[in-house]
């Protein structure tokens, strides 16, 4: 089957300013593609092109006919003047009954917040709610723009677990943008290192040793690229108490 989405030779320029140059990128079913790069590397522009929000100046974007995108935008601030509950924000553009909403919120661990006001949520909680919102659309491609911002290490780790769990359950593809070079999801199938163009791409372990990558981020920056593999013997429920019965292990290791 064809890739969910593929970008071929995509370029973007605003006036004389070249933002993206000849980018090739594809996401297949079940694939987790991580896009990393410094600020101003064009990551957000690439996401906009993939979503169809912006037209590329050169190249083509091919979307599979049955593509359903679930999108988690990077910055999300809701004006305090606009009253909005979690339940309401989940159903802004999608129809879903109570059971579906609860299921999606349970998936991200914040079912208890269903009737809360979004203005009372912490940054991390809002991020989870927005992830649940993306899941309600039953996407076959998740586009996540810095999903772990506003989260501490524990929260980020759990967020990556959720993404992997969703991928395992629904076979969706994932396009994940991260400015955090030091940690890349273990389940990542392919890392694209972007700086206007694709500097290097490949399996996370290979990319971390790629001379282009070292040149771009320097030996200290690159040296800290850690592929996140973990063994937890416990997890924390959102209210903080330790949950023992849910043990988590990876079925395999990369390397």
């Amino acid at each position, binding site marked *: 089957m064809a890739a969910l989405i593929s970008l071929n030779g995509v370029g973007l320029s605003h006036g004389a300013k070249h933002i993206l140059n000849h980018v090739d990128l594809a996401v297949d079913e079940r694939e987790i593609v991580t896009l990393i790069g410094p600020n101003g590397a064009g990551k957000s522009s690439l996401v906009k092109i993939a979503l169809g929000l912006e037209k590329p100046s050169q190249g083509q974007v091919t979307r599979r006919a049955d593509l359903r995108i679930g999108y988690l935008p990077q910055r*999300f*601030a809701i004006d*305090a003047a606009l*009253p*909005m*509950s979690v339940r309401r924000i989940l159903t802004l553009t999608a129809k879903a009954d109570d059971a579906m909403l609860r299921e999606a919120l349970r998936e991200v661990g914040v079912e208890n917040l269903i009737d809360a006001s979004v*203005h009372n949520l912490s940054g991390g909680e809002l991020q989870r709610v927005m992830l649940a919102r993306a899941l309600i659309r039953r996407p076959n491609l998740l586009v996540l723009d810095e999903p772990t911002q506003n989260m501490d290490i524990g929260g980020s780790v759990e967020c990556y677990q959720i993404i992997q769990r969703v991928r395992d359950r629904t076979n969706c593809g994932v396009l994940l943008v991260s400015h955090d070079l030091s940690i890349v999801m273990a389940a990542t199938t392919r890392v694209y290192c972007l700086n206007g163009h694709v500097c290097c791409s490949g399996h996370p372990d290979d990319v971390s040793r790629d001379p282009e990558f070292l040149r771009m981020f320097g030996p200290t920056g690159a040296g800290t690229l850690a592929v996140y593999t973990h063994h937890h013997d416990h997890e924390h429920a959102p209210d903080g108490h330790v949950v023992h019965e849910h043990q988590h292990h990876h079925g395999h290791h990369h390397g």
Partner: protein
Amino acid sequence: MDMSCTSTSIITATTMDNFILRALVAGIGIALIAGPLGCFIVWRRMAYFGDTLSHAALLGVAAGFALGVSPIAGVIMTCIAIGAVLLGVQSQSRVPTDTLLGILSHTALSFGLIALSFMDTVRVDLMGYLFGDILAVTTADIAWIYAGAVVILSGLLMIWRPLVALTIHADLAVAEGVPAHRIRIIFMLLIALTVALAMKIVGVLLISALLLIPTAAARRCASSPEQMALATVGLGVFAVTGGLYASLMWDLPSGPGIVAAATVIFVLSLLVGPRAFRSS
């Protein structure tokens, strides 16, 4: 000023009861429209946008006279034209949008005043257009307002859900299939119509006050967008009634009286409102 004498003389004159009733009916009609639309202007941080459109309304009055059509038709056309320009300039980056809105706003007001000053043949009640004259509304004006209310409110109802989605996060809404461009244009048309209709009631200088102040007061008693829109309508009706009453009792100019009443309600809401404005 002998207030008791003034109020007594107005209230005892039975022939004048009709104009008070007409003013009240017209004012309530405007509150019905301004409430829900004002909510979106506040949520979308478009206060300046409404301001610019209302200042441009005076230019519309002049255009209406020049073209030989009714002032209200001139205002609607001009507001639509200015609104289209505003939609266009939001996507440029040479001049900051708020600066440009300020320039457009006062330029349109000045050009309107200049154009009207050239029209020797028509007698224009400038004060009436600047500050409104709700006590002079005719039955035909009321018909305009309520016909407009039906058009504006049903238009808003049609785009309500996508407009809320667009307000929360434009890119997200577009990625989820909301036709942003069309919705924005319809919304702009609705504001233009509202400005044209409200002009007679509070005048071009105070229209945006009527769109903003009841909305700001309503925030504290609502937990959903729809509740807030309804609360805004309620408080707007309250402000119109209170303002008209004050204008009769103390012989205040009526348009500013309504805006002052809305402000009193807003301040009271700050003091007694159960819900605090949260910063994030």
